[in-house]
């Protein structure tokens, strides 16, 4: 039992980080039809800049986090203005956008390495402090991340559901051509999308750095495929789906190692389990967990 609770908790923590990163990717995809392969590197950037602000510049951690999120947003917007906007105007398809995103990922990843070096970093956060819950050791830093991430996603999901700009975003992803002729400020929608994606990308990176205690410039890339799996699992474009997709993936990956289940799969197979879950779910629900079967017209 204790082990189950432990694995479940670990899975939830990881899942919440997947979820928060997945949200940005999911939004960008549904609004801009862009599979943002550079998203992983925004995670790395967020963690490294937070480290820089907090540890090198001795700013309070929360200030460092906010500054990093701002930076993530700024870079997302700069890329929008110098690259994505022009590409969309030239009528570039999904694949062209995707390839440019890999190009952006190359540039971003190498820039981070060039600026911050290849050494690993860690935040000045106590990783060890735990309390016992049902026999499981719950790490305080992890619990904090789980709470913050879940709250952040819920808030953003509510924002997307209720606010004017959120509704406009959904309208744009639903039907871009109609949106642009029905008084929706398309530029503002796109800026909002990049803002959320940039800020949440950085936040996910900071959370991952917090949970693991240590990170290198390969962090984002290592997580990217799992995050993409979470996006698809929770149905592309669904904010809550991103969180649920992340949770499902995180929990399944952790629980797969439990001996009570089929004797436990070696933990080196965790990524295989994650992808297998993705494939199996899609076989039964081809449009993801939250997908709706559409009426053919």
């Amino acid at each position, binding site marked *: 039992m204790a082990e189950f609770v432990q694995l479940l908790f670990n899975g939830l923590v990881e899942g919440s980080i997947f979820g928060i990163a997945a949200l940005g990717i999911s939004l960008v995809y549904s609004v801009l039809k862009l599979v943002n392969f550079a998203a992983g590197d925004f995670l790395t950037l967020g963690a490294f800049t937070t480290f820089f602000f907090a540890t090198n510049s001795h700013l309070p951690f929360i200030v460092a986090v906010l500054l990093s999120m701002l930076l993530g947003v700024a870079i997302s917007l700069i890329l929008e203005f110098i690259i994505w906007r022009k590409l969309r105007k030239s009528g570039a398809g999904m694949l062209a956008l995707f390839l440019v995103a890999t190009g952006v990922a190359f540039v971003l990843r190498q820039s981070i390495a060039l600026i911050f070096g290849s050494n690993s970093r860690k935040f000045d956060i106590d990783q060890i402090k735990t309390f016992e819950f049902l026999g499981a050791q719950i790490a305080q830093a992890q619990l904090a991340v789980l709470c913050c991430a879940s709250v952040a996603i819920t808030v953003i999901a509510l924002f997307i559901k209720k606010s004017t700009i959120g509704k406009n975003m959904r309208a744009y992803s639903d039907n871009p051509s109609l949106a642009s002729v029905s008084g929706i400020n398309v530029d503002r929608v796109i800026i909002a999308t990049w803002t959320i994606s940039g800020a949440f990308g950085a936040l996910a990176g900071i959370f991952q750095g917090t949970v693991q205690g240590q990170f290198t410039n390969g962090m984002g890339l290592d997580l990217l495929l799992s995050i993409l799996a979470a996006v698809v699992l929770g149905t592309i474009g669904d904010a809550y789906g991103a969180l649920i997709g992340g949770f499902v993936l995180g929990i399944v990956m952790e629980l797969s190692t439990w001996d009570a289940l089929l004797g436990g799969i070696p933990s080196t197979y965790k990524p295989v389990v994650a992808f297998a879950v993705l494939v199996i779910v899609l076989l039964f629900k081809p449009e993801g967990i939250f997908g*709706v*079967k*559409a*009426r*053919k*017209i």
Partner: protein
Amino acid sequence: MNNLILEVNDVAVSFGGVRAVNGATLDVEVGSVTSVIGPNGAGKTTLFNLISGATKPDSGTILFEGLEIHNLLPHKIADRGIIRTFQGAKVIKRLSVLDNLMLGGQDNPGDSLVNFLNPKARKAYEVQCRERAMELLKQIGIERFADEYAGILSGGQRKLLDLARALMANPTLLLLDEPFAGVNPTLVEKLLEVLHALRSKHNLTFLLIEHDLETVMNISDRVIVMAEGRVIADGKPNSIYENQAVIDAYLGTRKASK
């Protein structure tokens, strides 16, 4: 011998809790022109999707030439001889107009990769298919676009191409989904002539969805009226105008009073 080519028995299907077709029963006689009319959302297009296999029914049966087809995949149903057109006139935009038509060719040996090693058979068919396609293009008057991307055609021209492509497939039963909507009246008449010629020559059966009542009344042997997923009336064109259920559900009082 049964002269019904198509029998739809108590077919139902729903999407996300909404019953699109709700126990529809109808049949089509060999060589007839049958029109399906009805208000929007009555389930007409869904009915077509069911017959052509694009949608699987939740319950009910569909028989074509006396054999069940409702569990078959769309291409199997097409192989049996039911060919359809689409409401929005679907053309393959990035294929040439000619290629769009040649897509309709049936039993093309070139469709099978095994015949890649048998170029003789492939090419013979291809030449024959191309000739036939060009002939049809001339009939619908867009042969000058043969080698252009179909994506450059206007809405009306796409309708024509969609129809011609269906004819390429030598159907026994042709399902036409709003073939005349958005086509200007002069062209509609030309189309009707083509269809009439085909009907008399090949004993083709037509089942069509159409909103333009005058056209429907002119060409149909029989009219089926659908509303809310069911058949609410079925009979000779003239009888429809007098049917109170049809007036309520579809025509509206003003039209009927005319």
